[in-house]
């Protein structure tokens, strides 16, 4: 039993930290963007990610034949945790679900076109699975793809496409076989975001950042840009989720926010009395710190299970995701309470406790327990996969 990472892994973390120190830039590393810090939506952020690629840190888990270094997903996990800890953009969809799915199932054209660009961070992707009538139930997606000569015509609407307003390519699921069972009629496509017929409409969120609706009106896609086999899209989506669990919910923002709160409590006073001496606050701090540690070790447990190989550690992933995100919301709520009346003030408002991040986190973390499989979905998974209970819905 060993709860620490190996010397080699720790050396890698130190190298990443040194890199981050050398590349400090408040526009690139912005903790106030909370969950959205991970996206590469500005030129500076893209340039930063290009440097990450130059350091050899894109494609670490890829096979050498495709330009990767085959050193295992754990390093990508460690990298992302460090990136997240300073609010820097993270490696994600490109080296993750897009690259890995293309390597396994894509045709040669797609591999040649996209894999080198991904490793060099020359392309940003947007992912389109969710639709207005298919939320937690992705297999219910309805966007239509109909045959048109040597290609397809896509018609319909996607929702919650976070990167649609800056990405070049759309990784999008569509129903190619309306007669097939729900899970078997879906195919995956790669479509340029600038393709005629695509309209992107921003959806502002209470997390300050935007997400997007994407309307596809008779968008033509050549058959070569179908990913893998027709009708197997849902399988690829599920497989990629399994492959990409390492990067699914970074933990670092939680200790980072807890530190913010602890430092606030350690230094702030109310009516001349230090908050740190307040027994009620001390009890709440103790609970939060303890639950944060539980969330952390549930993450390690899932990482360890992933490293062990074998079947995908579905229940471990769900337990971690459930606990960590529910805790994230509790922490945000407690930070507001401990911040008191001032905690209602927003980032960049004079005198806001914790730099206003108590407030922003309270709004941002709403999505934590929803995105990437809502808490209720995680509980369904745990009940069935781990506890072997009957279907409950």
């Amino acid at each position, binding site marked *: 039993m060993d709860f620490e990472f190996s010397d080699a892994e720790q050396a890698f973390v130190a190298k990443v930290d040194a890199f981050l120190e050398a590349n400090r830039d408040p526009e690139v590393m912005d903790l106030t963007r909370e969950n959205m810090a991970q996206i590469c939506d500005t030129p500076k952020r893209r340039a930063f990610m290009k440097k990450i690629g130059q350091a050899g840190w894109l494609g670490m888990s890829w096979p050498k034949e495709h330009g990767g270094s085959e050193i295992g997903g754990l390093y990508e996990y460690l990298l992302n945790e460090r990136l997240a800890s300073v609010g820097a953009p993270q490696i994600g969809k490109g080296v993750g679900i897009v690259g890995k799915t293309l390597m396994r199932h894509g045709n040669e054209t797609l591999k040649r076109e996209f894999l080198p660009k991904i490793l060099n961070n020359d392309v940003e992707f947007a992912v389109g699975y969710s639709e207005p009538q298919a939320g*937690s139930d992705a297999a*219910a997606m309805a966007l239509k793809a109909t045959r048109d000569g040597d290609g397809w015509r896509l018609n319909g609407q996607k929702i*919650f496409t976070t990167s649609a307003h800056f990405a070049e390519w759309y990784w999008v699921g569509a129903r190619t076989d309306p007669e097939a069972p729900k899970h078997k009629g879906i195919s995956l496509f790669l479509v340029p975001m600038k393709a005629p017929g695509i309209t992107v409409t921003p959806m502002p969120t209470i997390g300050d950042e935007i997400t997007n609706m994407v309307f596809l009106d008779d968008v033509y896609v050549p058959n070569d840009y179908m990913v893998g086999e027709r009708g197997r899209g849902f399988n690829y989506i599920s497989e990629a989720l399994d492959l990409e669990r390492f990067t699914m919910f970074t933990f670092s923002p939680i200790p980072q926010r807890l530190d913010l709160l602890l430092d606030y409590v350690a230094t702030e006073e109310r009516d001349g009395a230090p908050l740190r001496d307040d027994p009620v606050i001390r009890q709440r701090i103790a609970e939060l710190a303890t639950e944060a540690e539980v969330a952390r070790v549930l993450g390690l447990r899932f990482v360890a299970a992933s490293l062990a190989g074998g079947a995908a550690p579905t229940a471990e992933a769900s337990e971690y995701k459930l606990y960590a995100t529910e805790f994230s919301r509790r922490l945000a709520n407690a930070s507001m309470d401990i911040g008191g009346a001032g905690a*209602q003030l927003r980032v960049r408002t004079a005198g806001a406790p914790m730099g206003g991040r108590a407030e922003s986190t309270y709004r941002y973390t709403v999505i934590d327990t929803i995105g990437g499989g809502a808490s209720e979905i995680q509980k369904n998974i745990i009940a069935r996969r781990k506890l072997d209970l009957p279907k409950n819905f």
Partner: protein
Amino acid sequence: MDLTFTEEQQMLRDTVRGLCAAHSPIGIVREMEDDPIGFPAAFWKQLGDLGVTGLTVPEAYGGGGQSALEAMIVYEELGRALAPSPHFVSAVLAGGVLARAGTEAQKRAWLPKIASGEAIVTPAWLEPRGGYGPAGVRLAASARGSEVRLSGTKRHVLFAQAATRLLVLARTGAEPTDVELCLVDPAAPGVTLTQQYTVASDTQYEVAFRDVAVAADERLGAAGGGWAVWNDVMHEGIVLLAAQAMGGAERALEITVDYARTRQQFDKPLGAFQAIAHYLADAATTVDGGRTLVHEAAWALATGRPVATLAPMAKLFACRTYRDVTAMAQQVHGGIGFTTEYDIQLFFRRAKQLQLSFWDDRYLGELVAAAVLAGRGAAPA
């Protein structure tokens, strides 16, 4: 025992609901977010014209002389509609202070204008690094003859830009309750307003006072008696805020139940999932319980019963319920509720703010504990 409202009370509710629908519909509520004035002028005028603004102001000063029960009904409706107005700060708090502590001349000067809505008076109370109790008041009031001079900073001053006067809580001595109340023109020399932005996107200001002169006739009540007056007024005020919270919680729950009845997931309505149905059933229970508790507190106020226990209980429970119900509501709404387009987020953001404003859980809890332990066992050491 009778937990129903009279016909007149029901009419009052309908009136206020109608006013909110006509003059502060949700689109207007959204427009007012982060606005420097922060409330719709037409709505405020209508509240004044129809006598709602002056509802609880004594009849002798142009008000309606109604009880806390009627005021509670108004606040449930304002809470449901999220309708922004300076009624609470001006008519309830400042009006309450003036009615209790003002001289006859001060009452005549201000209460009728407050009742009509012509004047807006807003308390300048909280300070940086200060709590909700008397010790939190540190802004210095130094005597210069019959004048006092104010120096210090206030925060969370609602609607300060639109205010006719600020009701300032200031410190006159070292004893905890050496607190003085006085009226200050926000346009007076030495007063600086800076808007501050909040989770509820309401309209608050930081107000800096640099050697601001206050004449003798702008000082309210006996020296050193300011905190007791403020404390009494707050005990009435928090019952109304509790009503506002329960109105908001009730409406947020309705919106969420509607969503759960119609939104389909895995080929059935969300509300057919037992986990979701049970969230909603729990929420319905705490909302009904909280509302009844608030009704009891308002009834106690209206009938002259003591409220040292019930008033803080009401705000504590109502605001916690509002916060918890709206957090649950966001979860049930899923991703779409995270977008600003849906209304549920308006409730979610306001709920947390209301919980932290005008005495938070911790401060209220101390009041409740003191009240329920009073008279039991030995006196505290």
